[in-house]
């Protein structure tokens, strides 16, 4: 097996809940609670789940924007130590992020050329003239004109801003991009443009992607492997094809069946699973299996013990007591 580019093992991110007269922690939100994940060079791995499942926290923890409570993150075989400035600088040469909302990802007061050149400037790469050339090159790469460099972000549409953000992320030739819902803020007719651009760039530069999304259709289209998260845990993981064709975990199954297909005939004949109730609060998760409050199959064992992630087929694992 190829040496993974990124490997995360038993990662935990817990936030204290403060209360009382003196703001002491009275409990913890276990946003990410023991997650293992790895990404090979050139691979796209998707993290799927609903809001509050911890997928974005995981992304932020890998970047060192959030301090992990426990666990290890290794990049290129070397452990990532958070909180060390020099280490963070080096890490940002290899890992970059694309945010969901391109409007807030760009400083409104800087020209887009300045924004794209910022990673180069921070890392002291090249002379001013070289950086200018690089910015023009990057703009061309994402389908914009070199002449756009002097304009401010508000002169661009959402899709164009996302291109600019992608150009900035590529400035330092990173190996891994964390894509945090990169198309969900965009118009439908613009989404495929951006998805194609990302796929092209991956082919071209051999990039690895960690793709964070709640949109299963996009994930299915985009990712090689997928990890389904629920309340801070991975409940199912495997090759995208396998997981989508044969979902094992009842949550994955429900999630897939909840996605409305753009095809009324298929939609009518499809078996729909409608889950009862809401996602429990991450501050107060149920005992045992985290999905037990909404699971249509739940048995008494599910209330007592939390299931381990177990292999169900080649490279396909699921955390369910009942289906394995």
């Amino acid at each position, binding site marked *: 097996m190829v040496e993974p580019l990124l490997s995360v093992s038993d990662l935990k991110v817990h936030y204290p809940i403060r209360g009382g007269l003196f703001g002491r922690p009275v409990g913890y939100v276990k946003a990410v609670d023991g997650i293992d994940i790895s990404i090979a060079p050139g691979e796209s791995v998707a993290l799927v789940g609903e809001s509050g499942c911890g997928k974005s926290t995981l992304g932020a923890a890998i970047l060192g*924007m959030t301090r992990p409570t426990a666990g290890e993150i290794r990049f290129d075989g070397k452990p990532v130590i958070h909180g060390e400035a020099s280490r963070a*600088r080096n890490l940002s040469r290899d890992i970059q992020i694309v945010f969901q909302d391109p409007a807030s990802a760009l*400083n409104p007061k800087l020209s887009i050329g*300045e924004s794209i050149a910022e*990673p180069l400037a921070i*890392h002291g790469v090249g002379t001013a003239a070289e950086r200018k050339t690089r910015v023009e090159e990057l703009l061309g790469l994402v389908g914009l*004109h070199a002449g756009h460099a002097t304009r401010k972000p*508000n002169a661009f549409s959402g899709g164009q801003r996302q291109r600019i953000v992608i150009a900035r992320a590529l400035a330092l030739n990173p190996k891994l991009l964390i894509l945090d819902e990169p198309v969900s803020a965009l118009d439908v007719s613009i989404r495929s443009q951006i998805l194609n651009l990302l796929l092209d760039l991956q082919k071209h530069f051999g990039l690895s992607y960690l793709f964070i999304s709640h949109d299963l259709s996009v994930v299915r289209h985009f990712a090689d492997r997928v990890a389904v998260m629920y309340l801070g845990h991975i409940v199912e993981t495997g090759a995208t094809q396998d997981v989508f064709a044969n979902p094992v975990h009842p949550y994955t199954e429900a999630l897939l069946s909840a996605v409305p297909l753009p095809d009324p005939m298929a939609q009518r004949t499809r078996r729909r699973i409608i889950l009862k109730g809401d996602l429990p609060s991450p501050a107060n998760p149920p005992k045992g299996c985290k999905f037990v409050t909404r699971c249509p199959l739940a048995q008494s064992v599910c209330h007592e013990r939390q299931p381990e992630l177990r292999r169900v087929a080649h490279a396909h694992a699921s955390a369910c007591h009942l289906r394995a």
Partner: protein
Amino acid sequence: MAATTATTPRPTKRSIPWTVLPFAAILVALLLIAILAPLVAPMDPNTQNLLARLKAPGFQARGMTYFLGSDELGRDVLSRLIYGARVSLLVAFASVTLSGIFGTVVGMIAAFYRGWTETLIMRLVDIVLSVPAILLAIITVAVLGPSFANVVIVLSMTRWPRYARVAYGQTLSVANMPYVRLSRFMGAGWLRLLSRHILPNIAGALIVVATLEFGLMVLFEAGLSFLGLGVQPPTASWGAMLATGRNYVATAWWIATFPGLALFLLVLSINLIGDHIRDRLDPRGR
């Protein structure tokens, strides 16, 4: 793929509306008068003429016209008004600058370092803000003694928390914007973060506070002078002129009326322009 031309969402550039324009003119005129006081004032503001005491506007003596009358020591009200503008504007400008810079720096430090620095600074801000500013100014001037420098120091000392609070809140929200988080992640130093990302994005809100404060500072200075705690005689100051005028309400209405009117027009102009700036920065009219 070729991109189409970039579009500008907000193409309309609003000009200064006619309601604000005359007041902008007044403000500019007052500024010019203050700067050029020795050139525009018809008389020396401190020359007394006991033969020309309490004369009504238009009174003439020794070939000079007292356009706005004379005060109880026979000084020309117009000339004192002109020199008084200097004091008002200078005090306001100096204290706004001092308190603005200090408050902004302190507020940004609190937001930037968090932890106990934040707690300490913001508690201090709360405490100073909870004491009514004019009261704090009064006690401090009373202790330090009244003088031009002391008035500026006192006003700055009592007003900086306003800026600190705004700078703190704005910095916190800007620092949480993805572009700042990203820049931090890449290892940008504090100088870059502040100068390229944070300051340019919080400047607007601070300018709005500063314009409002400017008007308030003019009023505060006049208030302190009115109570005899401001710039000391014989230096001309509108507040002190009003205090004198109060004693002659029944006999010499002009002594109090003109400085009051000048003060009112100046503050009104500043407030109107401040409102206009605020509307431009935030069209919802916060």
